[in-house]
């Protein structure tokens, strides 16, 4: 008989810094241990990966159409067909997927996703002319993508150099050339431009944000597809692994150029040239997270606010109408941008999420709300990835042994969690599984 092997006792080492006393101390300690704001449970992993996949399919349309609008539709005064993407842009090879990609980290192909193409052809209502699909709203809701773009345009000053550049002489000169070329031979529009130049400049700035967001999402779509594939193969050990995958992805493409090129009668006008050195991380990803996840603006038709009673913050930086704060139920009203996204994702839910929703709350009746809350969980995980990436880029490794470094990490995490102290934040709710 073999004697029982003695297991060595766990080494007891005193922590290098005292525990946090923050209201979200548990979450902070989890972040310090390499975790996510979202607890590591099998169901959370299933929910977030499932929704990443459902998000990636419409996103594969959003980025293509955003670039189509920024580069081709441009200043069309009556852009009624801006959502009728050209075949060229629908076929645009993704710069970060497919064999032609310089950076081959994600396995997906460069073409539009087959589920997207199938939906564009048939929609919910079956085969009919594109115009009828459009008018019936049986299509991908670009209005959501435009709402995100507008949030970035409106909040503007959120780090990076993009916004400052839009006010520079170089930008104005580039935009001026493009405006004049676009309306060459159109005395009415050129006359209006002479009378109201700033109005036209503002439109070009908006187009630059279309390009910015399109270039941002062009990367996120293959990342989310890849995560879904890895999960289907049983490849993620938990929520932190999924978060780490995002952190690595953020670094991998951090240096991707952000630019705005416009094609007018076949000629390329570089309104924001790549040579400005703008990057995916600083000029797109971080402003996007700030504008869309945290700030945005109150959605019409959801709730009334009295600005005189300070129900709307006087400082834009305090806006808190993004997904991390959203009460998904009232926001789920018809026509509201997040509802349009939920509607888009509904079409591409993996079967395991459909089955999950059937067993909770009102089953299929309130799938939009349930998937909206899943989306909220998943975006807390994406935000965690951004927070960890920033900590990694600007501060110290989690296993650093210098107490001062660990305290600097702690202060950073606490400052991030301070943003969720306001009552609207959903950080507390997502800690449990019964928030659906």
């Amino acid at each position, binding site marked *: 008989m073999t004697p029982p092997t003695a297991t060595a006792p766990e080494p007891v080492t005193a922590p290098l810094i005292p525990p946090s006393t923050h209201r979200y101390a548990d979450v902070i300690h989890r972040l310090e241990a390499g975790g996510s704001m979202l607890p590591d449970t099998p169901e959370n992993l299933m929910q977030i990966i499932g929704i990443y996949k459902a998000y990636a399919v419409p996103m594969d349309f959003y980025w293509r159409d955003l670039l189509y609008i920024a580069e081709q539709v441009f200043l069309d005064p009556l852009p009624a067909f801006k959502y009728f993407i050209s075949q060229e842009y629908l076929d645009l090879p993704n710069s970060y997927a497919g064999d032609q990609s*310089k950076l081959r980290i994600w396995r997906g192909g460069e073409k539009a996703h087959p589920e997207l193409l199938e939906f564009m052809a048939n929609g919910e209502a079956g085969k009919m002319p594109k115009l009828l699909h459009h008018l019936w709203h049986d299509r991908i809701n670009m209005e959501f993508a435009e709402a995100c773009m507008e949030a970035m345009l409106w909040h503007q000053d959120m780090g990076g150099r993009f916004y400052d550049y839009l006010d520079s002489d170089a930008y104005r000169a580039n935009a001026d050339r493009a405006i004049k070329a676009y309306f060459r031979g159109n005395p009415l529009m050129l006359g209006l431009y002479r009378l109201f130049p700033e109005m036209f400049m503002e439109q070009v700035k908006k187009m630059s944000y279309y390009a910015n967001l399109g270039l941002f999402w062009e990367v996120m779509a293959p990342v989310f597809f890849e995560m879904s594939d890895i999960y289907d193969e049983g490849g993620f050990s938990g929520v932190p692994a999924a978060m780490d995958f995002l952190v690595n992805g953020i670094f991998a493409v951090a240096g991707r*150029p952000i630019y705005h090129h416009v094609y007018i009668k076949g000629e390329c006008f570089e309104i924001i040239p790549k040579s400005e050195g703008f990057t995916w991380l600083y000029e797109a990803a971080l402003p996007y997270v700030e504008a869309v996840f945290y700030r945005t603006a109150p959605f019409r038709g959801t709730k009334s606010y009295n600005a005189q009673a300070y129900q709307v913050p006087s400082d834009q930086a305090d806006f808190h109408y993004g997904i991390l704060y959203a009460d998904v139920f009232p926001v789920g009203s018809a026509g509201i941008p997040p509802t349009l996204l939920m509607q888009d994702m509904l079409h591409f839910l993996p079967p395991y999420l459909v089955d999950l929703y059937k067993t909770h709350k009102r089953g299929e009746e309130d799938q939009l709300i349930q998937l909206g809350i899943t989306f909220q969980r998943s975006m807390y995980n994406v935000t965690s990835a951004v927070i960890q990436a920033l900590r990694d880029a600007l*501060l110290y490794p989690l296993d650093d042994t210098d107490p001062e470094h660990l305290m600097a990490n702690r202060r950073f995490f606490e400052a991030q969690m301070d943003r969720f102290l306001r009552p609207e934040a959903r950080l507390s709710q997502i800690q449990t599984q019964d928030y659906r």
Partner: protein
Amino acid sequence: MANIIETAKGAGVFGTLLTAVEVAGLTGALESPGPFTVFAPVDDAFAALPPGTVQTLVDNVPQLARILKFHVLSGAYRREQLIEQPEWESLEGAPVAIRRAEPFEVKNATVVSADIVCDNGIVHVIDRVILPG
């Protein structure tokens, strides 16, 4: 005495940095009279970045140049001078923070070898690639 580029070549631990500087077209600038202060990350610092990070930058020269310029100050400054001021403006435009004097820390990097005097400036060797923000 040697200039910054020659000194880095001689050290043998800046292979990635020198390649990046070459790709970004900054070799000539760092051979010019300057003077400059360069925070030079060692090869291990670049190797510690997640896969793809360096490749994306090398594929995109202006973006690479921007990150490299964040490692350079105009003027030659020794450790004693640098620690007198909490922040120094980099050639990239964003400030480089001097976080600690002992051990000498620049942003979240530790200076593993300070005050390497060259013809056209001073090199401080750091153990991490530093990023604006």
